[in-house]
């Protein structure tokens, strides 16, 4: 069978660096990987919001959002929560180890359409991973966008991803950052409470703004309610969906929410679209 | 004698009770000789209930099949009883579930329907093809009478009953809160002719037999899902980490699937034959289950699904149990 254009055939990539974002049973580990094949590396093009199937031969694959912006360099970053069979095996990887990657899959955040607008990201927990590329992208193309506001929270300081990086944003890049944890902890200088409350505390204006939210379903539900309270229109609100996936190319059938295939029509959707799909928030 | 008036009235009385969620019985299906499970929660829904030689489904499977969603905060879980109509074989599933503590006695209200054997619908549909109009049937001595659009047809039981019914030793419910009509006289004798036939073959011949059958298995899992005794929340055959049986459909994995299931049912199978009935490719699964049934009876003098006070076979031990099969 022909080798080229076989969408199921993954590429080999080497883990260049890896570190834990959070610890515990469901720890989150970030992998910085580089394709072994020069040609693959050069042909790879992705935009913020897209995903890739990463995996290990003999174990399987998982669809993971690409957590870096293409502007960062010729590498890919994935932040993976230790969950099932594949992610458990991925967590064993150390620098120099190999994984497989295929993609990129899905649509992307419409970063071109958003030029000249204020960008607000509202993330919770591991949900910050798909938001990180936008932040990086906007930072890199700073003149194309108005204010960048990052709102991010997790259950506890131990559950926050990219904390140093986000705190680092505070000082430069003209980014306004707001962090929260659910319960009081000693030495925590930022907001205490749930992300939807932090959103109300920040109260961004909807004028010429785009709000992008990603996190646990229950958080998204309340964030959406609060964005509506802040008078955001449905088409000013974006989120990403996730569902179980096997193929990534719209064939295997399982990722649909209503008639939307998350792997191809998504993962990025505007709330205006999702409102029409009752299964979207199932 | 089957008394449908009484059946429906009893069902109405039962579902009127505050402590009963619904009654599960049978109703006329959408076409031909099909009968389908019916869940009546209101008295008027009980009018559709029926009982006839077409009532093949073992409804006891629904006692454990319901997928329970988490109870919303502030709401009380529904602890009402489920009322269930059972034939003799079906009632044995209830007993075995009680034995295994898969069910509590208070959780179920059992309505017994003594049964003279239900048909093999595939045989009937072959005999009377192309009948779309809902047809009915009743027992008459040693015959089954089918009420067809062009009149009644009498057929001998031998011609249309599945083997599990022809061999049945428990036509009357072994457990019930209420019995709808008089018990029928049991007709079956246990000589395991069906099992002996296979046992008489050489291992090669037996493997050839099963190889042929297992090769055609689609792994649709209807045999497992319909089985009232297959109620593990997390079936070992769905496990991926570790994977005990690959999802690939081939002779090796199919054999692994069927043998794993047969062993898990040893001393637990209550001979309702549902696995065999639902199999779309007609794998004679009861031959496998009956072989193990026979082993269990002969070696441990144990019959599952008869005595609700019994200890499960695998949890019981007697010093004089035979050990000659232990390597």
């Amino acid at each position, binding site marked *: *069978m*022909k080798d080229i*254009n076989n*969408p*199921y*055939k*993954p590429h080999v990539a080497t883990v260049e660096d890896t570190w834990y974002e959070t610890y515990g049973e469901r720890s989150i580990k970030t992998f910085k990987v580089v394709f072994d094949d020069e040609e693959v590396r050069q042909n790879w093009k992705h935009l913020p919001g897209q995903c890739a199937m990463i995996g290990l*031969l*003999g*174990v*399987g*694959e998982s669809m993971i959002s690409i957590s870096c912006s293409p502007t960062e360099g010729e590498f890919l970053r994935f932040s993976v929560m230790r*969950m099932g069979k594949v*992610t458990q095996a991925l967590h064993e990887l150390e620098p120099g180890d*190999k994984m497989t990657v295929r993609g990129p899959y899905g649509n992307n955040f419409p970063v071109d359409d958003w030029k000249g607008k204020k960008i607000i990201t509202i993330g919770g927990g591991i949900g910050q991973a798909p938001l990180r590329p936008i932040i990086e992208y906007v930072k890199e193309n700073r003149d194309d966008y108005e204010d960048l506001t990052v709102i991010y929270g997790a259950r506890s300081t131990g559950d926050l991803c990219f904390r140093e990086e986000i705190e680092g944003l505070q000082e430069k890049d003209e980014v306004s950052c707001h962090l929260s944890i659910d319960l009081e902890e000693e030495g925590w200088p930022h907001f205490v409470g749930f992300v939807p409350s932090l959103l109300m505390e920040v109260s961004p204006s909807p004028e010429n703004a785009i709000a992008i939210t990603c996190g646990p*379903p229950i958080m998204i539900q309340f964030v959406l309610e609060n964005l509506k309270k802040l008078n955001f229109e449905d088409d000013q609100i974006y989120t990403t969906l*996730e*569902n*179980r996936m*096997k*193929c990534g190319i*719209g*064939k*295997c*059938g*399982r990722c649909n929410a*209503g*008639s939307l*295939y998350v792997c*191809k029509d998504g993962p990025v959707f505007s709330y205006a679209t999702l409102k029409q799909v009752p299964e979207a928030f*199932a | 004698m089957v008394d449908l008036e009484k059946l429906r009235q009893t069902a109405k009385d039962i579902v009127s009770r505050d402590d009963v969620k619904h009654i599960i019985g049978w109703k006329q299906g*959408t076409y031909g000789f099909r009968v*389908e*499970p*019916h869940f009546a929660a209101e008295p008027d829904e009980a009018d559709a209930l029926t009982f006839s030689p077409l009532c093949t*489904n073992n409804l006891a499977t*629904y006692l454990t*099949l319901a997928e329970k969603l988490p109870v919303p905060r502030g709401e009380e879980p529904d602890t009402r009883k489920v009322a269930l109509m059972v034939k003799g074989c079906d009632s044995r599933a209830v007993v075995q579930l009680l034995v295994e503590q898969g069910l509590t006695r208070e959780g179920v209200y059992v309505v017994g329907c003594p049964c003279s054997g239900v048909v093999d619908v595939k045989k009937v549909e072959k005999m009377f093809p*192309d009948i*779309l109009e809902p047809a009915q049937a009743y027992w008459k001595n040693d015959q089954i009478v089918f009420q067809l659009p062009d009149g009644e047809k009498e057929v001998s039981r031998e011609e249309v009953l599945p083997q599990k019914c022809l061999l049945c030793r428990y036509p009357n419910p072994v457990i019930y809160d209420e019995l709808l009509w008089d018990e029928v006289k049991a007709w079956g004798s246990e000589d395991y002719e069906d099992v002996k036939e296979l046992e008489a073959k050489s291992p090669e011949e037996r493997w050839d037999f099963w190889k*042929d*059958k297992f*090769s*055609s298995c689609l*792994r*649709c*899992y*209807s045999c*497992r*899902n*319909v089985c009232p005794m297959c109620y593990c929340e997390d079936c070992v055959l769905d496990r991926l980490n570790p994977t005990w049986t*690959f*999802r*690939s459909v*081939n002779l090796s994995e199919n054999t692994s699937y069927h043998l794993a299931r047969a062993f898990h049912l040893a001393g637990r199978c209550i001979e309702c034959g549902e696995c065999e009935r*639902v199999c*779309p*490719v*007609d*794998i004679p699964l009861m031959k496998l289950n009956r072989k193990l049934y026979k082993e269990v009876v002969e070696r441990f003098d144990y019959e599952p699904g008869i005595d609700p006070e019994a200890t499960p076979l695998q949890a019981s031990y007697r010093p004089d149990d035979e050990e000659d099969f232990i390597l």
Partner: protein
Amino acid sequence: MMEGMKLQKEKLNDFLDGLRKEKYLFAPQKEGESLQFSPVSEESQVELDFQNTIIPPKNAVFPQTETLFTYQIGKLDIELPEEDRERVVLGIRPCDARAMEIIDRLFSWDEDDPYYFDKRNKAALIGLACLEPCINCFCTSFEDGGPASTAGLDVLMTAAEDIFILQPVTEKGEQLLSEQDLLETASDDEMKTVEKSHAEAAEKLQRKIDTEGIPQGLPGLWESPLWEKVSGSCLGCGICTYLCPTCHCFDIQDEVEGFDGRRCRMWDSCMFGEYTLHASGHNPRPTRRERTRNRINHKYAYFVDKFDVIACVGCGRCINYCPVNIDILNILAQVKEEL
């Protein structure tokens, strides 16, 4: 297009032998207790006197289990399978051929699935007109559908008294027939007899559904109590989906024996709970109610939304083989009542 040709029934085996020169010939044969489409190795095993096979012939282009590639544990080389052979699927019913045309749309959505089309593009479909439809057939409910519909077929074959009539539908079919030397031109009378038998067959169908309004209306019944009612007795098995000629969903698994690893795909079913189960334990379709709702919606609304055709051909298999008599026509009738 070439005229209708005829084949003497007594020459069938020789004809089949001619077809399978350098090709796979998929035809109905006895497997275990049931009839299935499988590659013919002995012509006499082919059975053409049947209503329809229990398992649809989709496996000729979309096998139940298929190796995507193989590898050695500890190594990184990926070995793709050999290209597949040309194939003739003989005896396929018109409904099942239409089904293939329907799932082509999914497998070619934006990009071709190379495994599917490796077989599909190499397959010639010789359909067998359905002169004795089964009780739950409802193929005439669909535009293009019918017991002698040529949609998706390369050749339509019809059994008559002691001959088969073969009518080419596509150039591929014409080419295939021109390569066979056992065929003679059929007479006008013979062609008329065949046409008559087609019309009579359509009359024999007992069930039908008017699909008008269903694709547009279905999603609006999302919260209807109907779904709970029609799924109450569902066992959650895979019969309705595995036996469906348009169901195309699959799983992908890595399977390792010793150092030999393979990544393969196998039919999966939206009626299984694990199908949508997230690694976190969350399941967007937690019960059979949601799964049944999805199955019906997928066939009658989502697929229409995406690919402009209802993903159901009226073969009746899901009705015939459901162990608890869940009847899609009955469900659709209830849907129509609520619209």
